[in-house]
């Protein structure tokens, strides 16, 4: 069985109508010597068997609900309300595709139109696409767009504090392009200036100052941000950003061992035609009724071919829907509360940890929900000890090229005081 309806009798009838005597005959265009090869794969499993098998594999992974969880670094353990799962699994959302036929796709189209609206509100930007694979590919496409928008410039400058894996991905995307990634100063060759705020180790930057710096050099300011932080922090749009990207995983998508995630991309009205990705617009039908459609398709690969703004086609539609439902579920007050709870709990945790003999805070200035701690012993050792107590204390920065004695701690609204106190108590014992 292969989820197929047709039985041998059906197939016989069909072959007769087609006018061939066997299914094999339909493959006569395939080189005979290569046709019907032997394929070695494990024997098929029935539904109860695969469920058991995968339950076992799942059980071999750490799972957030079994730990006091302080690991973030780009993927966050924010709460996903039950409504999100209940709604995105509706077959009409889950098993539709790109809304090419708007009359029978208003569900997807309106939901994404709402997503665009809400992300526009969060970021303070005019235009939002829907969507990119993750924050890093969104950022890479933003970098490319900045170069393409400012004709004669070819350089993109990175401010300090960008997540190292993001940098890797921009480098991959830049490989074939006549574009340069630089850690140096801004100059008259600089098309885009990338600032992550808060930085990947937690520090909150002065984005307005960064914007001035970019604009003084004639470059676009690209801000990559944590969308949850926008519950309390100033919107990048209000600070002068030209492009905003973000990782939307925190917005109801879940951790998923790092995928699917959600690449958020927003820019100003004047950049619409340079923007990659899908956009939904509102219009009217023959009777004057309001409806939504895919729009500005002339930018896209299937129309503009080699001159397209990007080759992106399938995106993270269902994750964007999750984010829309998440934001609408929390609403104005709830979303702010998530950000505030994360702030207060993180600051409580930071203060308590800083008080432990041998530990100190390395993040300079303000932070939001994540902060870097200097540890008295290698952070990997701490991780190894605490995981036995079902505490994941954060990211040993050495895993991503940082120092041995650096631990990146993340605290969100799901961490109770009790959990934080357990973490602190456990850290006290590690020396």
């Amino acid at each position, binding site marked *: 069985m292969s*989820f*197929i309806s047709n039985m041998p009798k059906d197939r016989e009838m069909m*072959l007769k109508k*087609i006018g061939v005597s066997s299914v094999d005959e*339909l*493959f006569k265009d395939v080189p005979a010597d290569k046709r019907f090869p032997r*394929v070695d*794969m494990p024997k098929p499993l029935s539904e109860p068997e695969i469920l058991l098998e995968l339950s076992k594999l799942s059980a071999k*992974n750490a799972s957030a609900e079994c730990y006091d969880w302080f*690991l973030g670094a780009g993927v966050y353990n924010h709460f996903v309300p039950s*409504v999100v799962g209940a*709604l995105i699994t*509706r077959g*009409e959302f889950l*098993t*539709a595709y*790109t*809304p090419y*036929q708007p*009359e029978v796709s208003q*569900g*997807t189209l*309106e*939901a994404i139109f709402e997503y665009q609206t809400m992300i*526009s509100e969060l970021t303070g930007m005019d235009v*939002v696409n829907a*969507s990119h*694979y993750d924050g890093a*590919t969104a950022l890479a496409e933003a970098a490319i767009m900045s170069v393409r928008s400012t004709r004669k410039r070819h350089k993109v400058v990175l401010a300090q504090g960008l997540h190292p894996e993001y940098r*890797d*991905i921009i*480098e991959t995307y830049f*490989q*074939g392009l*006549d574009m340069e990634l630089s850690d140096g100063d801004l100059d008259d060759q600089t098309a885009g200036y990338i600032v992550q705020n808060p930085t990947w180790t937690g520090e909150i930057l002065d984005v307005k100052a960064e914007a001035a710096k970019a604009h003084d050099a004639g470059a676009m300011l690209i801000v990559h941000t944590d969308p949850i932080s926008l519950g309390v922090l*100033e*919107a990048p749009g209000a600070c002068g950003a030209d492009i905003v990207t973000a990782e939307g995983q925190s917005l109801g998508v879940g*951790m998923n*061992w*790092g*995928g*699917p*995630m959600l690449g958020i991309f927003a820019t100003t*009205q004047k950049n*619409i035609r340079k923007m990659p990705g899908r*956009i939904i*617009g509102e*219009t009217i*039908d023959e009777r004057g009724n309001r*409806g939504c459609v895919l*729009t*500005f398709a002339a930018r896209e690969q299937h129309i503009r071919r080699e001159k397209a703004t990007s*080759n992106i*086609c*399938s995106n993270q539609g*269902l994750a964007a829907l999750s984010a829309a439902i998440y934001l*609408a579920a929390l609403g*104005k*007050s709830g979303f702010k509360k998530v950000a505030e709870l994360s702030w207060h709990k993180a600051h409580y945790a930071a203060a308590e940890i800083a008080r432990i003999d041998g530990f100190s805070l390395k993040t300079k200035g303000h932070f939001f929900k994540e902060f870097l701690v200097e540890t008295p012993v290698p952070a990997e050792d701490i991780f190894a000890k605490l995981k036995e107590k079902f505490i994941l204390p954060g990211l040993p920065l050495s895993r991503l090229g940082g120092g041995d004695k650096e631990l990146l701690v993340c605290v969100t609204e799901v961490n109770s005081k*009790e959990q934080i106190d357990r973490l602190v108590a456990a850290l006290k014992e590690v020396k």
Partner: protein
Amino acid sequence: MSNLWKISGEGRSAVYLPGLDVPETPIPSELRRQEEPNLPEVAEMDLVRHYTNLSRRNFSIDTHFYPLGSCTMKYNPKVNEVTAALPGFRNAHPYQGDDLSQGAIELLYRMQEQLTAISGFEATSLQPAAGAQGELTGILMIRKYHEERGELEVRRKILVPDSAHGTNPATATMAGFQSKEIPSDKKGNIDLEALRAECDETLAGIMITNPNTLGLFEENIVEVIDAVHKAGGMVYGDGANFNAVMGIVKPGELGFDVMHYNVHKTFTGPHGGGGPGAGPVSAGAALKDYLPGPIAYKKGDGYELKQPPKTIGRMKLFYGNFGILVRGFTYISMLGAAGLREVTENAVLNANYLKALVADNFPAAYDRNCMHEFVCRGDIAPGIHTLDVAKRLIDYGFHPPTIYFPLIVPEAMMIEPTETESRETIEAFADALNKIADEAVNAPELLHNAPASTSVKRLDEAGAVKKPVLRY
């Protein structure tokens, strides 16, 4: 239609959050945003009612036949959703370490093996997030291959047959190549003469969609690959149509050097209204060391994640769209090799059957056995366009096929029924198409005014661009 903002009331929310249980730390006012984001404010019920009713305005596989050519809208088994939601998959973190991720890494490893086995390549990376990213991956691998051989300076050209997928030229551009279109011959194959003329020292490679977007298997595939290889070019396979050849032929054995898959097409990841997908890439001997990673490897009794030796780097964060991979792994593991071949056989059989049933009114653009889909034309009567036929199908309760693609067939309708549809459904759809052909002559206004059955009629797409309204 309800609008979340119109049904909002100040202070409403759908989520109960825990109270603050730690001392407050004041947020400095210079950091505070000046204006609060105007998010909707609704209780859980109003939220659920809004989205439930929105969903009911979609056609989908679960509700309607959806023969969208080239998108492989096959059924998505419900067991996939159960496995993908297992807590160790859904609530795991990419940085929790290999020792706390053994189940996930083992799954990657086993899926890499599955794909390698069915495709005849030597190694597989599951990292790319979607088909288009898989394409970019393949071309960047070809790029680095030439670069390491010192030939990149001259090898600037990627050939793209005019029957290839729409993303291919844009992909070549993103990898820094010039794309050059190769025409099809009158049988719908790559024009061999034209191809050979381009096979020179500037050739970096070719992107072949096989079967192509006409739904035809490239009859000269061996010659095509041979010509490209002889010129020093590499052969990329667009595996979006892999549903047509599983167990029938291994692309790796045909000589392809690298190929991507669409897990959300071939391996039943749900399409989700536009994604997420997953676009794993397999490669043969020449290119496998360039694969993006990390990739799963065996290590003692367990598994580990590592970058291949000459990797092009990371294509995206972490290890791919893992949740989609879990669904694909579930499906492949349930089918095995024989099941996957059965899929292909039935996909091709269904397409040929449908093609035969509508041949009188909608003859295929090329008179050959098709593979998993076929292309015909919708301008079947004076004043009737493909768009009219497509919209009229909606009134019969069917999602329209892909239209106006591929570009090489004017007024194209690209129809892919997939293997999961029953003979009866195929017949009902054929009946509808044949009736519409009759209406096109005898009652053309039914086509012009279609769809008549939906909550919105044809929408003013030009107006949407002229006066952009991109948010509430």
